[in-house]
């Protein structure tokens, strides 16, 4: 490749002219092609967080149980008995639009590596997915590819996929979101970090060979899509879950020795970002000899090797006297192992290839003079209040329509393609509880895991929507009986160079921060995905709904106390929390009246905490035997979901609330739960003492849902309505 390095090429690589000037100043000369490549990927939005860093710093990241917050490959929290949970969520949005199967598969592979690189055995995967309008063939194609890709990778590596969420909205037509989360477990005194140390120590490359795939993937992820997006297919990486499985086992085997000084996976920007970040964090220099890099194809240049995003590769700094022990482990697992360089005291990254120095860059300025932008942000406009609305159908007709609607219909068609039981520790499978529950082998500990975000709330009011996403994640964990510990965030937004998009981003972070502080629920890891916009044929661009997806983790000291959401037999059904009947931005408003209007429901963090702490206590002391949070679709949909989950029916009482029935039954007021208890009176008195609104709303029994208007719907009929959507969609 003979390309002249100049401003035009720098621009092609995604750098601005101001950024290119900085490169020239740091280098004191025109950079080589490889050097320009290194700068452009390290300074890409994807790797540098240049538009978001200022705001990410405002999020709370500490708590007594946080061992490592943001800045490492994943967040680490103490879960007791000497164990730590390590987790993170990351997007693979752009590749999943271009090549859905490989995009989603390598998204799973990448997040797995972020977790096991820290010494954890991955024990659970989740994924938060957003697709375009279900009516288009392209959406169906994307769903099919993404679901096969997630299953194809996760099933093969043997990590159970236990939860997640799916939303549909036309705003995702040209830009679906694939956010994958992995949770792993390690001994808390055996956590591995990425800061390199020890001048002279060998730098070792393990895993798959390097090919020409994914070159400039990080740059692609930092730009909008135009009409030629699909022509970018060659920048999408190809995954091999079999190699990943071997890599997990080999790394964990190596981690049981004392050979490792530092380790990091080669993710976005591959060899460049891993070597630059490891050396940079450790305050040392690094010299790489690319002739030693295991290569998949002949004739690769230094530029190609440094920018390749070939999958299933790790970079390790070893103790020199342990190199042979390490080599034997990787030979056992039939993986490539090559010493490709060593640490230096120069403070530079020096890349040699075929006897030539192809790059020589000072690391400090590469990191410290990376651009950081305080982009103009327009304060989002408050949504207009919702005018009075009226129900056009009977309660039962509306319920059946809602439980079969795209955002509420059963996801079983999807879950049933993911292995959710491998490992033998899955206490609650997808759909059985508000959060997925996995046991920690050989202990009584358990984890509750969820992902949450309501993008339509975030679109209407980004600040309130950001707070709601955190609150709902906290509530879903609480509803199982687990103690919420921490979150990972995956912030998916449009083009930050537009003030209205930047305004959404800033407001959402403000809301998230408030909720995290109020709920003692710090952010320990995360990922930002910007430029989620698609250029339309008429030249305008369409941004996705602001989607700050929250992945969250809670812990049980005794996982046998966890409850599910299936209606319990012969119980009173009690509504916890205050109901005002908020229909703005509700699913009811959208699906029944075809309107996306009004303010989203209010988020009252004091009530959220008070109600949630009460419910969790009552689960752990055995009073509450089933619990479901009230979210999309309101009380009636929540009750129907409880009936469908266990097949046990329920007779609902007519509310004497002064609220119109559709607002009472379908309003999406926050901080609410439905719980099953035996003694409703005693329970409600206890709630009153705790300042928690509670009222009896029904009694369980039989196998029918009996509505307050006297209409009965059998559990079986609800289930048919609930389960029809996905199979019908995917068969069409």
């Amino acid at each position, binding site marked *: 490749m003979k390309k002249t390095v100049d401003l035009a090429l720098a621009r092609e690589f995604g750098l601005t002219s101001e950024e290119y000037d900085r490169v020239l100043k740091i280098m004191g000369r025109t950079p080589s092609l490889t050097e320009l490549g290194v700068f452009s990927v390290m300074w890409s939005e994807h790797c540098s967080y240049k538009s978001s860093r200022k705001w990410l710093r405002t999020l709370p990241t500490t708590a007594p149980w946080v061992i490592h917050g943001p800045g490492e490959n994943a967040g680490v929290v103490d879960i007791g008995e000497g164990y730590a949970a390590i987790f993170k969520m990351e997007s693979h949005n752009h590749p999943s639009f271009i090549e859905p199967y490989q995009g989603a598969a390598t998204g799973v592979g990448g997040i797995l590596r972020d977790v096991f690189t820290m010494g954890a055995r991955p024990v659970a995967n989740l994924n938060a997915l957003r697709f375009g309008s279900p009516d288009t063939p392209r959406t169906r194609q994307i769903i099919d590819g993404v679901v*096969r890709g997630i*299953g*194809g990778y996760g*099933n*093969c*590596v*043997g990590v159970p996929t236990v939860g997640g969420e799916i939303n549909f909205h036309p705003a995702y037509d040209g830009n679906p979101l694939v956010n994958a989360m992995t949770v792993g477990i390690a001994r808390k005194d055996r956590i591995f970090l990425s800061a390199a140390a020890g001048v002279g120590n060998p730098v070792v490359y393990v895993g798959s060979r390097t090919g020409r795939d994914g070159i400039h993937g990080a740059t692609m992820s930092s730009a909008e899509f135009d009409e030629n997006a699909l022509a970018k297919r060659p920048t999408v990486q190809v995954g*091999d*879950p*079999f*190699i990943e*499985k*071997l890599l997990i086992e080999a790394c964990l085997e190596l981690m049981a020795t004392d050979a490792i000084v530092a380790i990091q996976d080669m993710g976005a920007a591959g060899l460049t970002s891993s070597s630059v970040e490891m050396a940079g964090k450790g305050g040392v220099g690094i010299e790489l000899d690319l002739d030693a890099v295991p290569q998949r194809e002949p004739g690769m240049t230094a530029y190609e090797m440094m920018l390749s995003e070939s999958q299933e590769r790790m970079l390790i700094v070893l103790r020199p006297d342990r190199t042979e022990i390490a080599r034997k482990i990787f030979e056992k*697992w*039939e993986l490539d192992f090559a010493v490709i360089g060593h640490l230096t005291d120069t403070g530079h990254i020096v890349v040699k290839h075929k006897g030539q120095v192809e790059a020589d860059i000072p690391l400090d300025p590469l990191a410290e003079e990376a651009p950081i932008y305080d982009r103009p942000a327009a304060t989002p406009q408050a949504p207009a209040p919702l005018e009075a609305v009226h129900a056009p159908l009977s309660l039962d007709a509306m319920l059946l329509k809602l439980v079969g609607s795209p955002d509420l219909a059963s996801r079983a068609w999807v*879950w*049933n*393609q*993911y*292995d*959710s*039981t*491998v*490992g*033998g*520790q*899955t*206490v609650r*499978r997808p759909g059985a509880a508000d959060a997925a529950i996995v*046991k920690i*082998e050989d202990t009584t500990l358990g984890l509750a895991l969820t992902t949450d975000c309501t993008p339509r709330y975030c679109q209407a009011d980004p600040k309130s929507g950001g707070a709601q996403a955190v609150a709902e994640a906290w509530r879903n964990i609480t509803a199982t009986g687990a103690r919420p510990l921490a979150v990972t965030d995956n912030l998916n937004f449009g083009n930050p160079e537009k003030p209205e998009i930047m305004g959404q981003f800033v407001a959402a972070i403000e809301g998230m921060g408030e909720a995290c502080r109020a709920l003692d629920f710090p952010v320990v890891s995360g990922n930002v995905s910007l430029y989620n916009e698609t250029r339309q044929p008429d030249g305008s661009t369409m941004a996705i709904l602001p989607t700050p997806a929250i992945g969250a983790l809670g812990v049980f000291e005794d*996982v*046998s106390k966890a409850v599910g959401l299936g209606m319990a037999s012969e119980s009173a059904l009690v509504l916890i929390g205050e109901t005002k009947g908020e229909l703005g931005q509700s699913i009811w408003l959208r699906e029944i009246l075809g309107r996306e209007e009004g303010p989203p429901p209010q988020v009252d963090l004091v009530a959220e905490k008070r109600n949630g702490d009460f419910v969790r206590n009552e689960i752990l002391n055995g009073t509450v035997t089933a619990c479901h949070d009230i979210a999309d679709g309101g009380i009636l949909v929540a009750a129907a979901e409880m009936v469908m989950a266990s097949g046990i029916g329920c007779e609902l009482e007519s509310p004497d609330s002064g609220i119109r029935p559709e607002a009472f039954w379908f309003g999406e007021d926050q901080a609410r739960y439905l719980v099953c208890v035996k003694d409703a009176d005693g329970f409600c008195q206890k709630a009153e003492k705790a300042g928690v609104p509670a009222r009896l709303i029904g009694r369980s029994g039989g196998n029918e849902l009996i509505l307050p208007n006297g209409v009965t719907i059998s559990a079986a009929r609800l289930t048919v309505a609930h389960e029809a959507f996905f199979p019908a969609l995917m068969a069409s």
Partner: protein
Amino acid sequence: MKSAIVVFPGTNRERDMAIALKRVTGKAPTMLWHRDTDLPDVDLVVLPGGFSYGDYLRCGAMAAHSPIMAAIRAFAQKGGHILGVCNGFQILTETGMLPGALLRNANLRFLSQDCHLRVERNDTPFTHKWAKDAVFRTPLAHGDGNYTADSQTLEKLEGEGLVAFRYANAKGDVQADDAETNPNGSINSIAGILSENTRICGMMPHPEDLVDPLMGGEDGLPLFEGLVEAFVR
């Protein structure tokens, strides 16, 4: 009962199997590496689930040629007991130790769900804790579980009673052309089969993942309890 589990590159349900075996024997099974050439003194060898060699070429095809398989064949010839689950079943058919083959699921998608199995005979070490025609629930998780065999083989399997388990509904009704009760499309709804001497059993579903009430039930436990009773020592 002394047991061993074979681990191939890509095996991923060895831990689940070890938990189930430990549950009934009180001791951890020996883990064997595919490059081992000798078997320890054991009563039972288990080939567990997973994606040995990434399912490349054909599921189980490359594992069937692993160094340890020679020792396992010899073990079988001496009358040893072998359980192959999921990928383990696929490996057993690839080696020819069990007849037939496992094709892609009829709906061409990976399936992960509970199913019900009907116990076809209860005079084997693998099935004697159940009554004949008993029905039990078990998870399945596979992309290639659609059992098939040529008509002669099938005639022999059915004629000699070598079918151990069939997919059924919760009442025990078998209906091969119904995707609800026979999810992967297996011929005659066959979910598990036996060797002629009934000492080798291959099955697609995962009873090892349902041996603890906390994980949703103990419906898979009789298989393992039955094996322990068969090898009291």
